[in-house]
């Protein structure tokens, strides 16, 4: 875990989302599924973001503007600086035989980097609209479905599922594939175990998702 003030290199629109590219500096990209806390200018607390891409000298985040923090981050322009802390938490286990990436909406954010590290395995991605589905272009080998179709309809059995997306999707995936690796979300104030704000029920007790997760598997 390292905190650096980095510069924005580019701010690109991908459908409704923003791909924010920052210069990497001394930050490690970490393992896919790990996340970073990004300073949200003008806000008190930073916001957790999965690493989306780790190209040479850069880190990139795919961000959906849904509230004051993400709006402030998505408004950053090339040259602007922001503090970044990470990588944090536990990412996906990569020692899998027949990987299948299952994602929904902004949940595809960690998949470009994950796909690269796994050698471009197949992916099934669900989106609210064709506009949102433009983000699928970032993930190689992806089959896309748009609501009302659901990603779970595209999942074949016998695969090592790595999933990220909205909670109902993750619950549905878990019912189908109990051994799936699932990347969960919870509101986080610190991202490094200091606040106990991100508590979720894990094995019957409330635990810190930023320390035990965000990727969990049963």
């Amino acid at each position: 875990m390292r905190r650096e003030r980095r510069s924005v290199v580019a701010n690109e629109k991908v459908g409704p989302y923003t791909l924010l590219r920052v210069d990497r500096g001394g930050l490690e990209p970490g393992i896919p599924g790990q996340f970073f806390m990004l300073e949200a200018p003008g806000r008190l607390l930073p916001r957790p973001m999965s690493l989306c891409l780790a190209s040479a000298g850069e880190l990139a985040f795919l961000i959906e503007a849904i509230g004051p923090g993400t709006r402030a981050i998505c408004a950053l322009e090339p040259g602007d600086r922001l503090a970044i802390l990470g990588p944090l938490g536990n990412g996906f286990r990569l020692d899998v035989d027949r990987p299948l990436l299952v994602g929904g909406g902004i949940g595809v954010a960690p998949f470009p980097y994950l796909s690269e590290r796994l050698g471009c395995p197949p992916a099934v991605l669900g989106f609210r609209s064709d506009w949102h589905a433009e983000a699928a272009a970032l993930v190689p080998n992806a089959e896309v479905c748009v609501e009302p179709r659901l990603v779970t309809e595209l999942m074949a059995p016998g695969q090592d599922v790595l999933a990220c997306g909205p909670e109902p999707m993750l619950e549905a995936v878990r019912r189908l594939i109990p051994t799936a690796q699932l990347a969960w979300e919870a509101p986080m104030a610190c991202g490094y175990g200091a606040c106990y704000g991100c508590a979720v029920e894990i094995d019957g007790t409330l635990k810190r998702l930023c320390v035990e997760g965000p990727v969990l598997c049963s």
Partner: protein
Amino acid sequence: MLLNASGCLDALTAPDVARGLDAFVTKTVTPEPRDGNTPVRIAETDVGMLNSIGLANPGIDRFLTRSLPALAKLGVPIWVSVGGFTADEYAEICSRLDDHAEVAAIELNVSCPNVESPTQGAMEIVASARLATRKPLWAKLSAAVPDLTEVARAAHDAGADGLALINTLRGLALDERTLQPALGPAVGGLSGPALKPVALAAVYACHRATDLPIVGMGGVQTGRDVLEFVAAGARHVALGTVLFADPDAPVRVRAELAAELSARGYADVDDAYATAHAHALSTATT
């Protein structure tokens, strides 16, 4: 002396951050283990944050067997924050901490809502704890009382060695879209910048009311803020919410403080101690 605010740092998860402090204060330990409140437990507001962690902690048994030995290895003095629902519960935990040399001090989280009156409550809790331990006792008070100086004097008379000021204030935030409370239990504790003027007033008033040393906290973000707390009468200052945004805050804040001090020609932070009281006039009502 720079500390963390109780509940704002886990030294076992982030030992390097804790090592940047002059003492590490634990999250409040209660007699029984507590899972804490139903999520959502945190929310940001425009001027601070709300939390309803609900004193999640392993309970005193597991704290003594598991956490304390690990904390002792950090090489930083350990202050244990103690909570409970009756004065006896506080006393019991204090007596169990008493013969652990690793414990440098005890902070009594006397900001527990279910006591008869805060003055009475603080008095009884501190007095029971005082009988149970020889460790330095810091009474952590809430500013949500009509007259904090009265509570401070009661804590002093009951045997406290110092005051920790202040705990969070009750606050509410509504979700932007749904207008429902952002936190699971609706109301939570407000911390961060919104608290700073209230905390400074608490430190200032208690410095005038007692001669107990004070740990000041509430909205500290910068070295400048630390200086203000010291000028208002705090011997020590604690970093809380700022640690969430910036785990490097202990290092940064020390550097900023050093720059502030030298810009003002102070050789040492002690030179700034209580200087805000230099030209004090008599107090009037608002």
